[in-house]
């Protein structure tokens, strides 16, 4: 008997806004002028915040920090598609996401300065604390989606991770549960090409990360991760589909980590200046500026005003983060269990 093709698959790629600021109108998502300005302001704010956090680290005022430079569009574009009731499971480099959903920026600085209180997210936000063990939060996101589905809550669950994360077992287990239980989930992979020093080609022999969804029975799409409109559209469509019972989606945001892995890393040890320079031309914020200028949404005056507002907010966040009372050592005990154990009551007498 002849061999037959029993299944075949396509992997789609979405680009809307090019480097010169031209948008493909046929693909352009519905966004008002106010929406576009809001997105732009979030992009500028998250970059301003990131630069400040780096300076504070260099001055010894916060601890090790994971910068987001270059990935702003992937983070703001996807987070902008969220509704307040959706649940978000970030990895450790999602400062832009936290900012976009409304976590107070001083808390982000508080966390990176070594204070757990910065991980306590606002009660009106369904966002999880930072997850450092790579991809281990993806099953949590799937579990939250299972719970939402069980309760009949019409919410989507968005989980963030990187290219390195796709090598972890928990990535596969989270994706597999999402497929099997047809969960209302969106997996956003920020493929920034480097997992510390290991390039994307050494994580997997697959040509794209998007195609990994195929083996779990749902759709994966690659988008230009430096194109905020493409990221927004892919995420919005995926969240809408998820909430209507259409199951999960994997979105590979093809982007680049312009900075070091963290402030404890030196990327010049393993990658070339030429590679980094080539990505500079694809900057996510520059192309938005060009687009807005063409549409009459951007002026020099507007830029100055946006930058001034961003600086003022970051100043305030920095001041607030540095003026909070030091943590109470008794909190170590208070939050281990719902109630103190016999042993903890004795140990606590040290404080």
């Amino acid at each position: 008997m002849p061999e037959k093709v029993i299944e075949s698959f396509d992997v789609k790629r979405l680009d809307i806004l090019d480097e010169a600021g031209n948008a493909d109108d046929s693909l352009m998502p519905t966004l008002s002028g106010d929406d576009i300005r809001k997105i732009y302001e979030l992009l500028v704010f998250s970059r301003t915040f990131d630069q400040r956090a780096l300076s504070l680290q260099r001055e010894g005022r916060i601890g090790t920090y994971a910068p987001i430079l270059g990935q702003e569009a992937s983070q703001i574009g996807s987070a902008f598609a969220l509704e307040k009731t959706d649940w978000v499971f970030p990895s450790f480099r999602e400062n832009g996401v936290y900012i976009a959903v409304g976590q107070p920026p001083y808390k982000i600085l508080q966390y990176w300065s070594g204070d757990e209180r910065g991980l306590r997210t606002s009660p009106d936000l369904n966002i999880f604390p930072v997850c450092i063990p790579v991809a281990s939060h993806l099953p949590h996101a799937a579990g939250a989606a299972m719970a939402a589905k069980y309760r009949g809550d019409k919410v989507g669950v968005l989980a963030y991770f990187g290219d390195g994360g796709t090598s972890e077992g928990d990535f596969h287990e989270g994706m597999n549960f999402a497929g099997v239980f047809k969960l209302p989930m969106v997996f956003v992979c920020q493929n920034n090409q480097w997992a510390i020093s290991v390039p994307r080609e050494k994580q997997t022999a697959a040509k794209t990360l998007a195609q990994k969804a195929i083996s779990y029975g749902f759709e994966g799409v690659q988008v230009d991760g430096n194109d905020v409109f493409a990221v927004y559209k892919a995420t919005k469509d995926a969240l809408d589909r998820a909430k209507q019972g259409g199951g999960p989606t994997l979105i590979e945001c093809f982007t680049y980590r312009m900075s070091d892995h963290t402030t404890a890393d030196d990327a010049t040890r393993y990658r070339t200046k030429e590679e980094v320079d080539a990505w500079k031309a694809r900057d996510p914020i520059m192309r938005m500026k060009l687009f807005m200028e063409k549409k009459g949404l951007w002026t020099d005056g507007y830029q100055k005003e946006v930058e001034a507002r961003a600086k003022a907010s970051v100043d305030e966040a920095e001041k607030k983060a540095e003026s909070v009372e030091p943590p109470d050592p008794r909190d170590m005990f208070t939050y281990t269990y719902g109630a103190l154990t016999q042993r903890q009551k004795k140990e606590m007498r040290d404080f």
Partner: protein
Amino acid sequence: MAQLNMVQAINLALKEEMGRDKEVVVLGEDVGMDGGVFRITEGLLAAFGPERVMDTPLAESGIIGTAIGMAVYGLKPIAEVQFFGFIYPAVNQIANHASRIRSRSRGRYTCPLVIRTPYGAGIKAPEHHSESCEAIFCHMPGIKVVMPASPYYAKGLLLSAVRDPDPVLFLESTRLYRLMREDVPEGDYTVPLEKARIVQEGQEVTVISWGYMLQRSLQAVEGFDAEVIDLMTINPFDEETIIASVKKTGRAVIVSESPKVGGFASEIAAFIAEEAMLSLKAPIVRVTSYDVVLPLPKLEDRYLPTVEKIRKGIGEVLKY
């Protein structure tokens, strides 16, 4: 009152609690159609449906990881790991997440999760099906480790575990599953966590044990004036009950089926030495399994502490 074995007692606890509380869901490998490989979850699928009794993919980290997500969302999941020896892929989830989320989120998120898993040797099971590695999980502040020693206590402790606001690892001795029956009431009763119980009072020696080894210890103390303590919650453990007893008897024997080095018997022994050394009349004795790789069934009877070995331990301390 019905005489139930431990399988029936745990099954009854699950059924009753799921009937009372819609937030309780069960998930794991083969827990639905098959009712679990030990039949602990038998009848739950028929009674509560596939939305609440979930046969999952074969992936321990995925099972515990999704259960954490459900718990944080507000459900009360009861996840089954098919055998304790298969829990290792999920240790990352337990150590890094289940135990820490309350602290990491400063109380914003909690994890009311129960992980049930059969442990222990003595039923001629294949390799990796007989481990007793509870001590590993006692080194993870933020989770509780519970090991019932009989059907009545299994039901009451499980109900407390499900209602506890923190993650509980609930370890069920495979040897105990069908070894004995006792009166187990229908309806709601709980046995508190973090409390030990004095199974029998005595004056000359305190014997401390948990899980299946408690039953062997009870056989071993015949003829001795021994006080026997069932620890029930291994960690955080009931220090007050232990100290009060040891101060009274002046002698302590700790019986556990784990290897000796780094086992939880060692923690209890160190604790007694710190807190009650001056009340002791004899060295503390740990009666444990050997520090060897757990053997296949042909040698498992030689591996586990026998009644004779426990009696010998008690005899040692009574020489002083």
